[in-house]
Every structure is written in structure tokens, then in C-alpha cells.
């Protein structure tokens, strides 16, 4: 597969602060790629470099095979972008802002624009200063989706939207994906990424810590068990790959590595169980594992 975005060894310094420190990112053509990381990890900085708004201090980056800094205007004809914090012109109406932004890429598809305004339940006649955060985000989203693009770069696009609008947003992602477009979606809303993305890159402190499909990443996570039983905890502790075993009243609570699931299930069958809750590994846990050690260090300090 051709790579739409290819970044390697990407570094960016802001004065003495090192915002990116050898970041790797590869987004294949036609995929929806999740870009995850906690606040301050360097997600927005990376996206801004991809758009040529800021220049990488070192490292190589291409978008459609072009240098996004030198060939920004050429690359942008095929890119739709939604920034994380949308600010509008106070004196322009929402409709005017949408038309202005799409005109910079060649103009909106009128039918598409009308449908998006309806789907996102948006009033385009109000002045920019009177829109809430969610409505400002809708302006950027409608402007992004109202003209087909080859690449959609979305920086936490749903942070101000309510659940109904999130559903409309997912519908648009599915639509552009079906049309063969590539999507790079930064987020820390894990459910959004789990539902939408083919592959995920997780970054922390300006470095890529994990990349792969969700299935691949799930191998790295643990499954949580909550068992209603009176049996002693010792049997579980003996199994390799079982962690944090503790008793909470009638319940035995522990986490198991994916490799340990088979012996755990055999053991559970043997000891007699009155109730069982198994939580699937979520990206939350991925985050906790990747940032947990850091947090532990912070607590220690």
C-alpha cells in the first residue's frame, strides 16, 4: 500500500522545549488512522508539521510524497483540516465561514453542504461570535466534509460535539472512507478511535510508543476479571501472567495477560464460580500502561 503520510525521526523544538523527539508515523492510503496520546504529547504539533504550518527541526516528512513545508499550497488542495480549537471570524456568519474555507480548496459541493448543515443541525445564519465551541467545531467539520478531499486531518474533532452529532460525524468518516479517502484522526476519546480506526499510533512525550492495528495492540493489554467466589486467592496468584490479585468482600479481582487466559479459565472452571465479570481490554488500559509508569514516578516524587 502507498503511504499517504510518512514521517520518521520527526523532531521539533520550541525554544528549549522539545515538543517532538523522534516521532514515527506512517499512514497508508485509504485507511482511517488513529493518533492517540495524552494532552501535551505532541499530537497537534505533529499535525501542524504535516500541514506545513510549522517546520520540523529535524527528521523527514512527506504528505502525498510532497514536502509539506515547501509544497504546502499544492498539498493542501487535497487536504481537509479541522483544528483542535476552532476560532471563527466574529463578524462572519457560520455559513460565510464555511463558504470561505471551502473556497480556498476550490469551493463546496452545494448539495453536500446543504445535507451536512441539516445532518449537523447547524444554523448558518448566526454570527461567528455567538457560536458555542460545539457549533464552531461544526463549521470546521462541515467545511472539511463539504468538498471531497484525498486526506482528512482531524484534530480532536468531536471534543465539543454531543453524542447525536458524534454519530453524524462517524457517518461522514465512513462515507469518505468508502470513497477511498485517507483519514488521520487525533483523539484522546478512546471509544471514538476504537470504533473508527483501522490502525492506531500512540505517542507520548513526542515519541511514538506503539503503532499497529487494534487487534495487534490488544495483545499488549490485560483482561480484567471479577469473580464471585469464596475460594482462596492463592490458586490464582500461582498462575504466571496474573497480576494484582486481591479480594473485595465476596469477589476475587485480578488482571490477566492475554497469554494467561487459558490457564485462568481452566482454574476458574475447577474452583466453582457463583458470578463472573470479564472486562475487555480497552485503550484506556493501553494508556494506563503507557503512562502509568510515568504517573507512578510522579506520585513517588
Amino acid at each position, binding site marked *: 500500500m502507498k503511504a499517504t503520510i510518512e514521517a520518521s525521526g520527526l523532531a521539533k523544538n520550541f525554544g528549549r522545549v522539545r515538543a517532538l523527539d523522534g516521532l514515527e508515523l506512517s499512514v497508508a492510503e485509504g485507511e482511517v488512522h488513529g493518533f492517540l496520546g495524552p494532552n501535551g504529547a505532541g499530537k497537534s504539533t505533529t499535525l*501542524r508539521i504535516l*500541514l*506545513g*504550518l*510549522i*517546520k520540523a527541526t529535524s527528521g523527514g516528512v512527506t504528505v502525498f510524497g510532497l514536502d509539506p513545508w515547501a509544497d*504546502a*499550497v*499544492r498539498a*493542501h*488542495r487535497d*487536504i*481537509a*483540516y479541522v*483544528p483542535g*480549537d*476552532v*476560532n*471563527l*471570524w*466574529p*463578524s*462572519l*456568519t457560520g*455559513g*460565510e465561514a*464555511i*463558504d*470561505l*474555507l471551502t*473556497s*480556498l*480548496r*476550490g*469551493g463546496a459541493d452545494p448539495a453536500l453542504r446543504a445535507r451536512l448543515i441539516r445532518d449537523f443541525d447547524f444554523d*448558518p*445564519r*448566526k*454570527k461567528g*461570535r*455567538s457560536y458555542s465551541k460545539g457549533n464552531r467545531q461544526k463549521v*470546521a467539520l462541515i467545511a472539511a466534509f463539504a468538498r471531497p478531499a484525498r486526506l482528512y*486531518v482531524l484534530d480532536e474533532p468531536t471534543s465539543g460535539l454531543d453524542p447525536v452529532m458524534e454519530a453524524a460525524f462517524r457517518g461522514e468518516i465512513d462515507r469518505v472512507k468508502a470513497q477511498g479517502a485517507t483519514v488521520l484522526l487525533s483523539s484522546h476519546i478512546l471509544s471514538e478511535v476504537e470504533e473508527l480506526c483501522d490502525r492506531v499510533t500512540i505517542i507520548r512525550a513526542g515519541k511514538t510508543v506503539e503503532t499497529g492495528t487494534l487487534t495487534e495492540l490488544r495483545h499488549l493489554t490485560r483482561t480484567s476479571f471479577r469473580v464471585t467466589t469464596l475460594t482462596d486467592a492463592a490458586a490464582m496468584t500461582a498462575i504466571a501472567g496474573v497480576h494484582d490479585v486481591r479480594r473485595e468482600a465476596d469477589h476475587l479481582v485480578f488482571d490477566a495477560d492475554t497469554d494467561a487466559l487459558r490457564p485462568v479459565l481452566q482454574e476458574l472452571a475447577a474452583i466453582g464460580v457463583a458470578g463472573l465479570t470479564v472486562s475487555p481490554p480497552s485503550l484506556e488500559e493501553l494508556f494506563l500502561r503507557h503512562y502509568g509508569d510515568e504517573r507512578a514516578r510522579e506520585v513517588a516524587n
Partner: protein
Amino acid sequence: MVRLLRAQARRDRWQLASWILGIGVLAIGSAAAVVQEFGDTTQRAALLMLASGNPALLAVRGTPDGLSTGSVIFFEIFTFLAVLAALMSTFLTVRHSRGDEEQGRTELVGGTPVSRSTALGATLGLGALANLAVAIVVTAGFAATGLPLGGSVLTGLATGGTGLAFCGIAAVAAQVCRTSRAANSLAGALVGLAFVLRAFGDATGTVSEGGLRVTSAWPSWLSPVGWGQQVHAFGHESAAPLLLQLALFVVAGAVALASVRRRDLGAGLVGDRSGRATAGPALTGTLGLAWRLQFSAVIGWAAGGALLGLFAGGLADAAVKAVQEDQALAATVRGLLSGSTSSLLDTFVAAIMAFLGVLAAGAALQAVLRVRIEEAEGRAELLLSGAVSKARLLVDCLAVAVVSIIVVLLAGGVVAGLAFVGAGHPDRFGSSVVAAFVQLPAALVFVSVAALVFALLPRLTIGLGWGLLAVGFVLGQFGGVFKLPEWLRNLSPFSHTPIVPGDSVDLAPLAAMVVLSIVLAAASVLLARRRDLVA
């Protein structure tokens, strides 16, 4: 309320301190200059007689009231002090009332157990304190020059009182308008109106005491600035007009407080109409956007320019007539203008047009600074994600800046010309327009310097842009009054604009300024392309 007041004062400490200090420096500087320049009575008499025979001078400065050094200083500078205090108060009040409401800070405060009107009450209190500080600074500045204390105090109170009155006016404006921008425009326009009413009343006043005193006509009494002037410090002193200023503050403040108690958060008397659902054909691309954002501001600047034009063309005739009728006065004027080969009329027009040049530079600066505002407020990020280069964004704003200059100069020049035609001088139409357009190169210099700052030191663009214009304005227009050394005055582009209309006009400095501007603008476009977007 005290705690809110303290918080507001803390937020403003640098801003207010610089306003107050600036007013103090202007007071002490001009007082010292008058003492030095018009040390003996004959010089002061000549100045006053020249002024009382020249409605334009009366309109700009105010009315003279006797020969004492103090009253001449008061005549020379009071209106400027008063307008500065009024502007300080306007911005202060709107910033903390409608500005806070717009930014959501009022909502935050409103959630705590304080009443809806407490914040505005604190703002009015802060305004009163700031104007008290202005009064003290002006009093101290005058007294330090060796002027009688009584008159100094009266001048200080009249300056602070004007500011106080505009605290009240701005508080009402902030209730009427839904945005701080609109409230600032409305209150700012009222400051302008107060100045113009006073200018009109003073220009049409009655001359007495052999040209040493002018009594204002009634329009001056409609203006808070006019009231301040009517204290006649160091002359026929009267503290009564201060009560008018205080009363206006109390009444307007009460109206604003009553309104804030009754209305919804975020509501105003003048609401936002709902606008277009789609962009018009003019709003495609960044050039259309730059023009759209600047359009209403240009109209405002051009209206100011037209007013100056009216001033130049309409009052010049009266000024010249007054001089011609009085042989003695004519002789005095000739004496004062020795060295200048231009006629009195030409000098007068050129002086007004110099102010027009400052307006044009202001309009253009606003247009070019817009590119930085777009960047700082994150909208440039949206624009640049389209097929638009950073260079293009700057070039579009520069283009709108140049158009702004032309519109303002055209408005001032053509209106001045038409006013001359109306006054029976059809021959002066052309020269008036030319006199307006020689101001273009100096304005271009400010635009290109601001663009260069934007390219190199983006975070300083706004402050440095307006700061340089203010410095250029003071050095260029008041450098002579303050007796500043020539090299310092020559730093201001305005100092290099030749006197037009005049007999010998040197075009070389104009050409040099145009070339310099083009070079600086080109450099800034090249540099802007190479730098990161900076929030």
C-alpha cells in the same frame, strides 16, 4: 465589590499606569514648552491674538482666556489631555464590562454570590480611581512647572472629570451594544463627537478683551470636554462645570447599573441580526476576507478623514478672512511664519492634512495588523490549511492596507476640495487633493515596518505597530511644540512629508519613503514565508 475592583485594577495595572503616565508626561512637557517658548507677555499676546482670529486654531486647541502663563498652557493643551482621559476611561470601562461579558468572565463571577451589578459597580469605581490618579498627575505636572496650585488643581480635576464623564458614557454604551468592539466604537465616536461639538462651539465663539479672550458658543456646552474647558483654569476660574461632569457620570452610571440589573447576561439593546447563510461573491479567498474584515473600519477612518477635510476647506477661509481684516494680526502672523514661503492658507491646509496622514496610517496599520490577529487567534491556521500560502495572507493584508490609505486620503482630500469650492475657491480643489496624497508615503512606511515586525517578531506586532505610530505621531506633530532636537524629529516618517500646497516642494523624501516601503514589504513577505505559525 472591593475584591472585584482590586482584581480589575491588577489586570490593568500596566495598561492604566502607561495611560496615566502618558497623560502626565504630556501635561508637564507641554507646560514646560510653553514656559520656555512664550516666556514674555508680548509673545503670549501675539499667540493669543493669532489664535482668537483663527477659528481653526480655536477648534483644535480650545478658547484662550487671558495672558497669564497658566491660562496659555491650559489653552494649548487641555483639550488633548481631556480627550486622552476620555479614551482611557472608555477603553477601561468597556474592557471590564462588555469585554468581560463577551469573554465569559462575567458568567464566572455571576456564579458566585455577588449581585449582577457588582462587577459594573467595581468597574465604575476603578474608573473613578483611575481618573483621580489622572487628576493628581496633571495637577502635579502643572504645579511642578511653577504654576499656581489652584489653577493646577482645577486643570487636573477638569481632565479627570472629563474621563469620569466618559466612564459613565462608556458604561451605557456597553449596555446598548452586544459586543465590546461595538461598545468601544460607539463610546469612541462619542468622544469624537464631544471634541467636534467643542471645536465647533469654540471656533464660532465671541472674541473679547482685544483678542485675548474667546467665549465659546453654545455647542461647547453640549460636550463634556467643553465643560472641562469652561473651568478656565488660571483665568476666570470656575469650578461649577466640574459638577456637570460629575452629574453625567452619576446619571449615566446609574442608568448602566439599572440596565445590568434588569437585562439577561449577554443581551443588549442593539442585537445581532441574523446574517447570510451563504457567502456573497466578494467573500471568496483571502483577499475578499481581508477586505471584508477591514471594510467597516475603513469607513470609520474615512469619515474621520472627511471631517478633517471639511475642517480644512470650510474653516480655512474664515481663518484667512479674520487675518486679512486685521492689519495688526496679519503682521503678527507673518512674523510667526517667518522662514516659510507658503501663504497662511497653504500652511493651514498642510497642517490639517498632516493629521489626515496620521489617520490614513492608522487605517492602514489596522489592516496589516489584522494578519497577526488572524494568526494569534488561530484563524490563520484554518486559512492556511486551504490552498493558501503564508506569503499570500500577508500580501492580501498589505494590499488592503494600501487601499485603506487611498480611501482615507481620498475622502479627506476630496471633501476638503469640495469645501473650498463651496467657499468660493474652486482653484484649491486640485491642490487639496494633492495635499492629501503627499501623506501616502509616510503611511506606507508604517505599514511596511509593521509587516517586517510581523515577519520577524510576530508576538510584538500589535504593540510595536501601534506604538511606533504613536511615537511617529508625537515626534512628527508635536516635536516642534516640545522643542525636540531635529534628529529625533527626523526619525518620524511624518517629519519627511513636505508642506503641500507650498511654493517649493521637495519630492525626493516622498520617493525615498515609497522605495523604502516597497523594500521592507518585500523583505517581510519573504521572511514571513520562512517562519512557523506562532500562536
